[in-house]
């Protein structure tokens, strides 16, 4: 029994239907973790992208190194690092927030590259016009460049959101009870791993197929709304 739901392992059909409510509770945690992680990634990625374009060499090189380091090391180890090392320095976060932060940091490295591509794709005439209008660099970014860059990178960001949803099961290792963690726990108690794990796999497959279809649609709608994607 878990969350007040009794399981019934007589046949695989009764087993599936009896654990479905538990797995769906896990699904909400999975989606919340992805939402929290992706919010962090969107904000931090933009910060990385802007720092990377800084004219001070020390800042842009340090940022480039940090981004490269985050991109080239495993999420799992970064997660362990945050989970076990932060408390040593007096920062004690709930497991869910630690997990969201780890997801956010890793994906900030990915999204910063997307932002960078989007910003670099803006025609340099926009910069010249801003200079002619006596806008400062910060104003140009805020009012001219970023508002134009963001709509065209929406599909690329969507791809990373889908990828992030698929990486949330990693959070189960730091006691975040999302879908996969719950499925494993059910397996440990009933000694029947196959049904819960298959169910979780199918839900992931369904999620990614829906998201990919949505993204595909978006890629067709955006150019019609006058937003070039490249």
């Amino acid at each position, binding site marked *: 029994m878990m969350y007040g739901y009794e399981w019934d392992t007589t046949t695989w059909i009764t087993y599936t239907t009896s654990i479905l409510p538990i797995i769906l509770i896990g699904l909400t945690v999975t989606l919340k973790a992805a939402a929290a992680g992706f919010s962090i990634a969107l904000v931090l990625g933009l910060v990385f992208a802007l720092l990377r374009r800084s004219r001070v060499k020390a800042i842009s090189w340090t940022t480039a190194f940090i981004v490269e*380091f985050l*991109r*080239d*090391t*495993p*999420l*799992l*180890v*970064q997660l*362990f*690092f945050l989970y*076990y*090392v932060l408390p*040593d320095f007096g920062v004690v976060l709930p497991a869910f927030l630690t997990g969201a932060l780890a997801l956010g940091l890793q994906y900030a490295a990915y999204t910063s590259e997307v932002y960078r591509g989007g910003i670099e794709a803006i025609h340099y005439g926009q910069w010249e016009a801003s200079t002619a209008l006596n806008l400062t660099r910060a104003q140009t970014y805020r009012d001219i460049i970023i508002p134009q860059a963001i709509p065209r990178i929406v599909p690329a960001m969507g791809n990373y959101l889908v990828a992030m949803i*698929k*990486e*949330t*099961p*990693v959070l*189960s*290792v730091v006691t975040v009870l999302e879908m*996969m963690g719950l*499925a*494993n726990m059910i*397996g440990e108690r009933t000694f029947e*791993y*196959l049904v819960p*794990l*298959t169910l*979780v*796999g*199918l839900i*992931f*497959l369904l999620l*990614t*197929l829906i998201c990919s279809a949505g993204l595909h649609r978006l890629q067709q709608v955006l150019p019609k709304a006058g937003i070039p994607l490249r």
Partner: protein
Amino acid sequence: MDWTAYLPMLWQGATVTMTITLAAIVVGTVLAFFFGILRVEGGPILSAIALCYTEVFRGTSLLVQLFWFYYALPLVGLSFDPITTGILVLAAHAGGYGAEIVRGALSSVSVQQLEAARALNFNRFQTLFRISLPQAVVEMMPAFGNLAIETLKLSSLVSLISIADLTFSAQSIRNITLDSTSIYSITLVCYFAMSLVLMVAIRVIEHFVRRGNVFPRSAHS
């Protein structure tokens, strides 16, 4: 305990990580080409099978796949040791993404090339192996490079099915010493170093592929 004392055990884990990653990349590349070519050339039934393979392995989470095969394979009488399971699942996962890369590169070969091959009376195999693939492989290299790094990073997940890789070693040392900061810092640096080595290796391979030393010279050059 001084942090240098951890190094022998971490090195042992790192060799396991390297072995698993390399094996998964090799097997994954074979799967990628097999299913990628099926997607393009396989006819309706075979390409549908290849599509199912790529969608299943790209659409479900790697950790779910690892646990699924870890628990499911013994039930159908196939019991591998965890390392083989880990390599196979990582390879199948990478193969799913790789097949999409292969498909994309094959379908981006220009139509004129295929028409020319047809005019020269090449059959389908000759067209594929002498015209399409040699040009497509050059296009695939950067994407395969990213996939290789991704495989190295994802290989850390095999520690969760009790394989003593680098992450697993780091975890076991931490459980004894509780010295989290230095252990995880060293582990992160190790992974970063391995990624850099892998990147250099990919550059070298890419260089040879571009010079046409691996595949026969393509017809247009």
